[in-house]
């Protein structure tokens, strides 16, 4: 009854004109003028939600002076699915497939982060082999995710599809293995609380070793094709510089942060699982420009290959598919666990009231912060550079809107 009364109080004029539904201060016509003096008429370009280079349903409201971006406002929410609320109505196990849909290019890593958080909440120990299998699959997934980032970035720079096809071709080899593992090519649902879904197939060892050899060769090729190409350098060097202090203020993480010169990788800083056993470097950039972001991802691929190689070498015998329960009753309490995803830090904050389902599941997604810093970077850039910077941030809308 209350609801109807509220409706009665509402002014019908508002509904017709749309006024009063949003804060007029946010309207583009009310933005403050950053530069005084003679200028041409401003152009407001709505880039997205349907645009070839906005990577999903991102909507950028760009104010242009000629072709120079004066201001940029990212609008999000086109992919909102209430993931966190859904989690409150699912048992801990049932929520694993939902994590696939967060950063759908790094589903294995999302699975891993969630499963580790739940295991921490339940205080559950898993055997050695599970750790190794999880590391191998998660790192392979990181390679796959970075390959897409590299390919689509080149695509945004106007290298018509060729680098993208190369990268997708490489990724296909990983995806085929995952398909064999768990029947999914994009949403794997592979990790289980206390184990994994299936054992690595018999040929996996040789297959992955062959892939590592092949991919190292391909990385050299990408360096020749793109990284040190004169046009590519001219387009990306010194374009979209993200200063380390700005990056930290916006809590930017992942390759974007490392490209700005901040050596921060959770796999080294607070090693989860067995990452402290492997030898690998953390690539960092010098200038924090678009080229550095590209190069850091490229280098991270080879670092991940190193980790996979070591993990394959030390893979212990045993059973990764341990017997797992259908439901888990978590003790009351809360837990926050963050893992290094391909895009940055993915955090799961789980609150349990002692029931079969979490009381609250808050997800800290890396792409959200990485997108938030975008206006800071692209203000004052040419529109072509804005596209370049957007491509170099490598965001996935699935985890921004959740």
């Amino acid at each position: 009854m209350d609801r109807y009364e509220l409706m009665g109080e509402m002014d019908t004029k508002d509904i017709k004109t749309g006024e009063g539904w949003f804060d007029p201060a946010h309207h583009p016509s009310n933005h403050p003028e950053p530069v005084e003096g003679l200028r041409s008429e401003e152009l407001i370009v709505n880039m997205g939600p349907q645009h070839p280079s906005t990577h999903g349903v991102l909507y950028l409201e760009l104010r242009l002076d000629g072709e120079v971006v004066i201001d940029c406002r990212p609008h999000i929410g086109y992919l909102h699915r209430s993931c966190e609320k859904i989690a409150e109505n699912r048992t801990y196990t049932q929520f694993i497939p939902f994590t696939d849909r967060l950063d759908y290019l790094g589903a294995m890593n999302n699975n891993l982060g969630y499963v580790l958080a739940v295991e921490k909440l339940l205080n559950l120990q898993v055997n050695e082999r599970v750790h190794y299998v999880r590391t191998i699959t998660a790192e392979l997934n990181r390679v796959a995710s970075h390959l897409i980032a590299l390919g689509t970035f080149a695509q945004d720079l106007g290298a018509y599809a060729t680098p993208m096809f190369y990268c997708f071709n490489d990724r296909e080899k990983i995806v085929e293995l995952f398909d064999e593992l768990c029947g999914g090519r994009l949403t794997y649902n592979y990790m289980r609380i206390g184990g994994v879904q299936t054992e690595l197939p018999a040929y996996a060892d040789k297959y992955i070793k062959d892939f590592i050899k092949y991919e190292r060769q391909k990385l050299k090729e990408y360096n020749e094709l793109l990284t040190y190409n004169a046009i590519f350098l001219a387009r990306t060097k010194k374009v979209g510089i993200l200063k380390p202090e700005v990056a930290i203020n916006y809590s930017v993480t992942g390759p974007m942060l490392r490209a700005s010169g901040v050596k921060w990788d959770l796999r080294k800083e607070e090693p989860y699982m067995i990452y402290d056993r492997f030898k690998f470097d953390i690539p960092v950039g010098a200038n924090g420009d678009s080229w550095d972001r590209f190069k850091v991802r490229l280098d991270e691929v080879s670092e991940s290959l190193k980790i996979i190689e070591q993990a394959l070498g030390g893979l212990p015998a045993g059973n990764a598919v341990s017997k797992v329960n259908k439901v888990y009753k978590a003790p009351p309490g809360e837990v926050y666990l963050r893992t290094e995803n391909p895009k940055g830090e993915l955090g799961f904050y789980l609150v349990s009231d002692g029931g079969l389902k979490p009381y609250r599941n808050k997800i800290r997604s890396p792409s959200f912060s990485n997108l938030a810093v975008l206006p800071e970077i692209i203000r004052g850039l040419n529109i072509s550079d804005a596209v370049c910077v957007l491509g170099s941030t490598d965001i996935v809308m699935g985890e921004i809107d959740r």
Partner: protein
Amino acid sequence: MSFAPEKLWWLLAQGSMILGFVAFSAMFLVWWERKVSALFQNRLGPMTVGWQGTLQTAADSLKLLLKENIIPSGADKLIWWLAPFFVVVPSVMVFLTIPFGEKLIVHDLNVGILFVTSVTSVCVLGIFMAGWGSNNKYSLLGGMRSAAQIISYEVPLLLSVVLVIMETGTLSMQGIVHAQESGWFILKPNLAIAFLVYLISATAEVNRVPFDIPEAESELGAGYHTEYTGMKFAMFFIGEYTNLVIVSAVAATLFLGGWQGPILPSLVWFLLKVYGIIFLLMWVRWTLPRVRMDQMMSFAWKVLTPMALLNLLISGWLMVNS
């Protein structure tokens, strides 16, 4: 040129031959471009319609013919409607003076190369009209970029053509081909530089990667032809590929000896050279990323134009003093 009624049929026949060639080569090039790109990208390309997908473009053209012609509500209708014609008609007209073979030329104008360069520059008008008339921000940006780009690159392009004219002393296309009987112009060092300048400028003229800025897909959707549908869109497409044939044909005529070559018939030699250059341009397109607008402009004015001018100056000095 006297006009005799009995010649009308002959003129019509020539006209339809040119139109037929233009339509066929555009359709062939679309298919070939897709096949070449597939070759570079470890794919198969179109495979379903006809053998190796050869009829794919025919099917696409049919689809485009049958599509609804949508006029944007805010469009400047006359300008919007005329724009595709301004792009296609000049490109077709240029073929009047292209020497396909020893005897295969519609009319060997004594100002042939001047005619080619002046008529092709009308295309930019059509592109800008499309950008302006569509009443779309992306189209306008694309149109403005295109106008700036084509006008800038016309300068080095013409300067490299001027060198050929200096070398031959004739503007007639057949005359230029005949002047290369002793050796192709690309074999001479100064003309080789001119060829390079010409090829780079030509890539910019036909809006191809790395200079495809007007229709930069990742930035502007489709640029100036965003708002066009159906056959109007197809006309821009035909115009684009026809221009590709033109710049390659002119390059082959001016620098690669035109239709000259041993054993094979002259027409075959000419087409081989033209499609060879087109393949080169496709190779570039499917490999390189795009340059930025300001980088492209500064490249035209600060690198290409001085290079062409210097080349012209030195060659002229040598010509006078030798």
